[in-house]
């Protein structure tokens, strides 16, 4: 008989959780299971929570350089993330980008937000930010945080939209594809006018 992972008593509850194709099994006695909430609880049990950072970390492709990164605002590092499974502040998404991208690649559906935008920041406004402000390093980085509203060039935006268009066609999301096609055309027009 398996033993409870928390207190060593005979385990009667066996919980299996699969995250990113990784299976974790937890054995608990009835008292510890009750203490950890039977099934009303949201999210992961604590035994799994501590492993979440590690699980996500292990999903990052080998060879990506995340060591040495540090958030200039809160001091969070990839090691701190590995331990806690949590980032330190919104700015981490900028300063720890390689780490975030590695996790996004292994755990998310796509690389770009497709959903709701805060009401006070409509898509139009975002497009405006993306298309009017030049980047300081010339690289295509439309993914700046809200605080620093700097962003990508026309070219990078169009490239990004094209990649999204390809993906939409691949996924057979034709309505979305049509919208992106129009958006690219519109952007090209603005570019020409601008030049």
């Amino acid at each position: 008989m398996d033993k409870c992972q928390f207190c060593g008593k005979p385990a009667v509850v066996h919980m299996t959780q699969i995250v990113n194709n990784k299976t974790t099994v937890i054995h608990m006695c009835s008292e510890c299971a009750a203490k950890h909430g039977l099934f009303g609880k949201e999210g992961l049990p604590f035994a799994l929570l501590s492993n979440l950072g590690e699980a996500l970390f292990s999903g990052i492709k080998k060879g990506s350089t995340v060591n040495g990164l540090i958030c200039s605002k809160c001091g969070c590092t990839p090691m701190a993330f590995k331990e806690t499974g949590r980032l330190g502040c919104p700015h981490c998404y900028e300063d720890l980008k390689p780490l975030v991208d590695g996790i996004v690649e292994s755990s998310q559906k796509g690389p770009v937000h497709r959903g709701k935008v805060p009401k006070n920041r409509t898509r139009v406004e975002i497009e405006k930010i993306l298309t009017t402000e030049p980047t300081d390093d010339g690289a295509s980085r439309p993914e700046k945080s809200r605080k620093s509203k700097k962003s990508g060039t026309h070219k990078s935006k169009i490239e990004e939209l094209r990649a999204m268009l390809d993906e939409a066609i691949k996924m057979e999301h034709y309505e979305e594809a049509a919208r992106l096609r129009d958006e690219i055309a519109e952007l090209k027009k603005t570019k020409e006018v601008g030049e």
Partner: protein
Amino acid sequence: MNNFVKKLFQDSNLRRETIPVVVSSRVRLARNLVDSRFVKYACKRNLREVANKCESVLLKCPAIKNGSVLNMDDLSEYERMSLVERHLCSQEFIVENNESRLLLTDDHVISVMINEEDHLRIQVFGFDLNFRAMFDKISEIDDHVSDHLDIAFDERYGFLTSCPTNIGTGMRASVMLHLPALVVTKQINNLVLTAQKLGFAVRGLFGEGSEARGNFFQISNQQTLGLSEVDILSRLTQIIKSIIDYELNSREVVKKEKIVWLYDNIGRALGILRGCYSISSADAINCISLMMLAADFEYLPSGLRDDLNQIMMKIQSSHVQVLAHKALNSNERDFKRAEILREFFATVPNLKFT
């Protein structure tokens, strides 16, 4: 007893429309303030400021009617746990207690966890698959919040959250399903694997050696970035509908091929619930699961489904202690649980096998 918790238990007599297989559903949004550290890395003072700011904005939200804010420090341990058992907040929320506050509406349909893992976790609950209505409601609250607070958002990553597994929409939608026939016919493992491959997480409790234990499974979306909210919800609805069909078909198979087993187990379970003097929550849940099946098959009035949902909640460890008005050890809980069950099932009519 805390007045708020007391009220919560009185209000649990609210009637709800229920459908077979679906126990409950939920949509949750994670949001953070742009200028503050995420909860895990913030100091108490900072968290208090965040909590004060969020609380005052939320209380003025027109979509939140009759909301009250509960300070976790004011509750006993088992009172706090009873909120978790009711799905109103998470375990992490009550254990970590980072200046945590819970906003809850009188009808228990909306809850907002302030300073859980993210500064704001807005939740809307339902008892069917009407995600559209749930999303409209939550979106209204979200709009109000982003109108009055500077929310961390990025063009590429969407809403920024403490854990990158929640970025993008910051939305998780989940449904708790009752799937006894898929468990009995041993098809559940396949289903879990298939759902997982499609990008959905399946959580459930499996008890050793007992086929009927752990018939409750929570299905939720795993991915939050790269899909719109509407896409996520329609995909989830689609898979849930297929699972419901799968379960209902399997129930017909069970009825056809295992009718004696079915009648025997349902009959014995009702006997236990009416006559027990000490019962563990796992055993009680097994028996109640069979009563839910009986209500779905109309061996019991189908109107009982909602009562069965409620009684299942009431027999969980912390609820038992709230009802007893004191902390109880494991044996005392089993005894009190049996008392609650005997009292309720004495009022349930006899089974009518058709």
